[in-house]
Structures are given as structure tokens and as C-alpha cells.
């Protein structure tokens, strides 16, 4: 229990709404198969393109599949693929970043130049180029996105690694003759991973957008696996007659991304002082009111 406390204290610093949305997304994603009320891929053309009913709370799509179940399952698809992308991207990024931060010199210059180039090309273009060469598929998508994503975590982990390496206790360890391996695995790597994880979480929203975008273009998650972007593009031809099927997956995805973006904004350092909230102001006023005022002048 004691170990939980600092984690909870950390969480308390972030906006509650962001935590709720992200929590909901992760919970839905994890337990989707048990939460979905119906089989998401069971087709029934007799009940196709229907509005909300007792049987189908959010209606059905053009093939008669239950929209609610598909939306829930899509959270699972999204969570798994975003998780895979981020884990692979972070592994590459942290590895490159810590190596650059540990070695400095030309290794650092070279790696960071690669990172700069990677960051200057929109991730969608990088990912599409890879898919165009290798051919579409689930793992191609994951790898292509990871390839487009690692420069960001590479840059962050390099910055963290450099600051860790310049700390006095690392210098002391070196003087004491600790092996490079011990410094790298014992101190540099654990410290960097922790810091990069936080940024990576905030970046999960953009990754979810990328997965959905590739699926929308037909180059990511392939049917029949439900995915928000792909559900949206499937329903697009019926936009005029059944806009609900387009809007629902769009809203679900937007909500998840908003959650991550609020978190990201909270994490980004806020250098500008904010004016007091009304409650704080009242508190300070009563504090000051208790102070005596006396005229010291004779």
C-alpha cells in the first residue's frame, strides 16, 4: 500500500478529466471482449442500418453489426496497436537516446542528426512510405508507425540522459571505478525510462490518431477487426442516410485523443504564472486580514 501512495500523489497533479477519459479508454480496451454486449462481427442484413433499439443501443451498421459492440472492441484494437507502436518506438528511442547521451561526441551528433531529419518529416508520410515499399498489413503498420515515432522519444531520452550523466553521483561512480555497464544499466537506463514514459503517455493520443488515419486509408487495421477509423470509412458511403455510423466512431476517437492531449498540456511545463483562483484569493485575503496594521509613525 505504501508504494501506491507516491503514485497516487503523482496522479493527483494531473487534470482529473484527463485521467478519467484515459482510464475509461484503457479499461474499455482491456476488457472489451467481456464488455461488448454482442458479437461485433455478427452480420444480419435484415437489421442493417437501424437506429438505436433495445437490442442495439447505438443501432447497427450497413451490414447489421451491433455498433456499440464494435465501438468497444475498437478501443481494444486501438489500445493494443498504440501500445505496440509506443513500446517499440520507445525501445528504439531510449536505446538511441541513452547511447547518444552516454557517449556524446560524434555518436551523439550523428544520432541526433538522424532524429532531426526524422522529426522534420510528418509521421504519416514516413509511415506511408514504409507501407508503400513493404506492403500493407498489421505489423507493417505497427513497425512503420514505430519508425515514424521513435525520433521524438529519442530526443527526449537523450536530453534526460545528458542531464543524468552530468549529475555528481555519476561522476563519483566513475571515479570509484564503476564499470560502464553498471553506470549504463544501473543508473542511466532506469532514470531515462521513467522520464520518457510520462512523455510517451501524453503522445499516445497522436499515435491513436495515426493508427486510425492509416486504417481510414485502408492501410492499417484490416476488416473485419473493428477499428474507429476503419468503421468511419466503412460508413462514409452512407453518410447521407445514416450519419450516426460516421459520427459515433469519430466521437469515440476524438474523446480518447482529447484525454491524452489534456494530459500532455498539463505535463508540458507551464512557465507562465497564473492568476489566483477565486477560492485561493479568498483564502489569502483572510490570511492577510489577520495581520495587524499599525501606524508606526510618531
Amino acid at each position, binding site marked *: 500500500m505504501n508504494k501506491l501512495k507516491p503514485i497516487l500523489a503523482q496522479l493527483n497533479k494531473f487534470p482529473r478529466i484527463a485521467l478519467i477519459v484515459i482510464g475509461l479508454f484503457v479499461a474499455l480496451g482491456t476488457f472489451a471482449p467481456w464488455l461488448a454486449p454482442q458479437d461485433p462481427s455478427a452480420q444480419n442484413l435484415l437489421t442493417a442500418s437501424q437506429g438505436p433499439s433495445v437490442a442495439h443501443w447505438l443501432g447497427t451498421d450497413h451490414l447489421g453489426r451491433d455498433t456499440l459492440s464494435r465501438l468497444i472492441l475498437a478501443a481494444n484494437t486501438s489500445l493494443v496497436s498504440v501500445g505496440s507502436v509506443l513500446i517499440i518506438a520507445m525501445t528504439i528511442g531510449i536505446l538511441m537516446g541513452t547511447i547518444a547521451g552516454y557517449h556524446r561526441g560524434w555518436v551523439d551528433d550523428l544520432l541526433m542528426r538522424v532524429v532531426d*531529419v526524422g522529426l*522534420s*518529416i*510528418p*509521421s*504519416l*508520410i514516413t509511415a*506511408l*512510405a514504409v*507501407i*508503400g*515499399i*513493404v*506492403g500493407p498489413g498489421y505489423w507493417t503498420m505497427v513497425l512503420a508507425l514505430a519508425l515514424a515515432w521513435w525520433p521524438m522519444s529519442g530526443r527526449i531520452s537523450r536530453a534526460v540522459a545528458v542531464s543524468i550523466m552530468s549529475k555528481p553521483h555519476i561522476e563519483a561512480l566513475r571515479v570509484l571505478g564503476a564499470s560502464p555497464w553498471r553506470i549504463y544499466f544501473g543508473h542511466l537506463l532506469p532514470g531515462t525510462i521513467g522520464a520518457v514514459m510520462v512523455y510517451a503517455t501524453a503522445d499516445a*493520443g497522436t499515435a491513436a*490518431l495515426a493508427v*486510425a*488515419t492509416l486504417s*481510414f*486509408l*485502408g*492501410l492499417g487495421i484490416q476488416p473485419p477487426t473493428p477499428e474507429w*477509423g476503419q468503421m*468511419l*470509412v466503412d460508413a*462514409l458511403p452512407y*453518410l*447521407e442516410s445514416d*450519419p450516426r455510423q*460516421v*459520427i459515433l466512431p*469519430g466521437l469515440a*476517437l*476524438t474523446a480518447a*485523443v*482529447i484525454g491524452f*492531449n*489534456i494530459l500532455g*498540456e498539463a505535463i508540458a511545463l507551464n*512557465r*507562465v*504564472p*497564473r*492568476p489566483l483562483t477565486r477560492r485561493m484569493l479568498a483564502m489569502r485575503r483572510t490570511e492577510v486580514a489577520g495581520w495587524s496594521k499599525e501606524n508606526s509613525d510618531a
Partner: protein
Amino acid sequence: MIHFISKRLKHSLVLLFLASVVCFTLVVSAPGNVAVLIAELRGAVAVPGYVAQVEEEIGLNKPLLMRYVDWLGDAVTGDFGISYRTGQAVSADLPQRMMVTGTLIAGSAVIATLLSLLLGFLGAFWPYKLPDRVSRGLALIGASTPTFFVGALMIYGFSVTFQLFPSFGFNGPISWVLPWLTVAVLPAAVLSRVVRVGLEEAMTSPYVLTAKSKGLGRTAILFREALPNITPVFINALGTQVGLMTATGIIVEPLFAWQGVGDYFLAGVRFRDFMVVQACLLIFLSFFIVVNLIVDLAVLMTDPRIRRQWS
């Protein structure tokens, strides 16, 4: 000034060279034998010796370096080879496509700039008050909504429900509105935060206290003191966003049935038409490099501190 421009130009040329190498290697390293692919396309893969003939035709049997030089020489003159899918020259309708994509990006950049300045100033003028909350909320939603969803909503709202604008085609300004708006949403959201945060940071700086001590009002301080200070930052961010618009174009062009470079690139990716992918990629990368060059020059014009370093 001249020194800076010549240095920046040299830098850009190096980057262009690197970009061409990347594009070339990407296609060379593609799995599978291209000659077989073309032979298949032409329905002659079974003909003995035909694959070797194709290899000869597209220069596959030459050394890599020679192939690169040939390819680059052709690319510079606007010849991007033969499409594996259609068998026609890749460059056939490229100028037209570049014009379409250029229209999309230019219009969206203007809309995004105006919209973000409006939202950012609203927020900075009444910080933490209602206009600021609204502007912040809009920015958050704009930055979080996937572009394809924005496009779908635009079509549903302005084309299906209200029938104000056509939902597809590239026929004059009326048909440009929806694609422009769709592409502009994300950059407008991001840039409005740049303006808002930049202005607020500028408003806490010592020279603003000086301006206040001079008796200037809040409006005058925002426009005369803070705005010139965030201009270089804004131009930099705008440059990044304009670069990103090429990626957004890939989604938006097919959605509105525009035949632009993004649409071409996507088709190339879909049908694994390497020559098209390569050509579009080279165009995109060159575009980023040119945009960066323009941004650097614009920053140089707007920031006297940097200007002095180079004069």
C-alpha cells in the same frame, strides 16, 4: 544578409541531396524484383528472357551509383520514370497535381493563420476569462479531432445538410472552401496556442512592464510590444504546420476527390507503385526544405537580433 542567404542555400542543397539519396535507397531496397513486377504487369512474365529485357530497359543491371546518377539526372529535369501500374510516365500530370496541392496548402495556410491569430488574441486579451476558455476549448478539440472526421463532418454539415458547398471536385473557389477548412482546423488549433502562450509569455517580460509604465493600454501593449516579439516564433511554427499540411493533404485530397500530389502518393502506396511513391516523396521532401528556407529568411526579416548576427 547575403552571407546568411548563401550559407542557408548551401545547407538546403546538401539537404536536397540527402533527400534524393533517401528516396533512391528506399525504392532500391524494396523487396521483390521490380523487373518481374513490370513483366507481370505487361502480362509477359512467362515469356523467356522478357524479365532480362525489362531489366535492361529500366537500367537494373547497371551499377547502383550509375543508376542513382541516371535517376537524379532525370528527376531534376522532371522525368520520374515509368509508373509500374499504368505503364505511363509518372510525371505526366504532376504539374497539374502540384497546382492542386499548392492551392490546398496555400488556402489552408491563410485560413489557419487568420483563425489562429483571432483565437490567440481573444485568449490573450481576456486571459483566463470566458473568451480564453472558449478559445482554449476550441484549440483542444481542433487538435484532437482526426482530420478525416473533420472532413466527414464538413461534408455532412455544409454539403449534405445545408448544401452550401460542393462535397467533391476541384472546380473554382466554391469547391475549395471545404477542403481548405478541413486542412486548416488542426494547424489553426496548434497555432492559436502558440499565439496565446507566446503573447502571455511576452506580457510577463520586463519590456512590457516598461510599456505599462509608459502609460500604454493593454491593447497597445499586445499589438505594439508583444506581437512583434512573437512573430518569429509564429513564423517558425507556421512553417512546421505548412509542412504537416502535405500529410493532411494525403487524407483530404481523396476525401474530396482532388487529384493532387497527396492523392497520387496514396495511390502509389496502395498499389505499391514505387516510382510514384518515390517521385511524390522527393516532391514532399523538397517542399519541406524550401519551406524551411523561406521560414529562415522570414525569421531573419522579422527578428533584428538574428539579422544583426549575419550582417
